[in-house]
């Protein structure tokens, strides 16, 4: 019986590992950092677009 209970525990551990890996980072700090990086990238893209528009306008 102990072995079959250990199999159940192994199933639980495997499911936790697989599902959390699929979900990705969920901690608030990691999500905020990801959002900051995204915001930064969008701002840089916007700046480059404006620069190009300025150059084309000249």
């Amino acid at each position, binding site marked *: *019986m102990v*072995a*079959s*209970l250990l*199999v*159940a525990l192994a*199933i*639980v551990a*495997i*499911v*936790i590992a*697989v*599902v*959390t890996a*699929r*979900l990705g980072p*969920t901690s*608030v700090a990691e999500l905020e950092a990801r959002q900051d990086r995204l915001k930064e990238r969008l701002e840089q893209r916007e700046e480059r677009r404006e620069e190009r528009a300025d150059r084309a306008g000249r």
Partner: protein
Amino acid sequence: MEHLVEGMALGNVTEVKVVLASIVAALAGYQVFLMAVGYGKLRLPFLGSRPASATHRAVGDAIVVVTVVVAFMCISYFGFDEGEDGPAALHMVFGALLLAVLSVKIVVLRWWHSAGRFLPPLGITVFVLFLLTWLTSAGDFLAG
């Protein structure tokens, strides 16, 4: 109640629910295997029918506790929305059916022993409902 659930899950209610529901669905599959051994449908040299049945009971008790926690999180945080359609509506139907059939199974196991012959079909029904409930919520979420 919503704040309690959010506090318990540290703000990650959906993610915690997905993990717990996935554990329960996987263990439900293991339960079917254990009872196939328990009823002698599957004969294995390394697992007898008595330890298989005992493990089925122990794992089943744990499944019921986790299922009640998931149902509580689901109902108190997400609630019932009559306007829902698609997987969310199916999830509500399957989830409610699952709780009903699981309750009947517990009643048959603990008190209504004369209905014991219905335990195998009840068990299979519970397993199928676990899968359908998972597929229409956690499975759908994980698939993106």
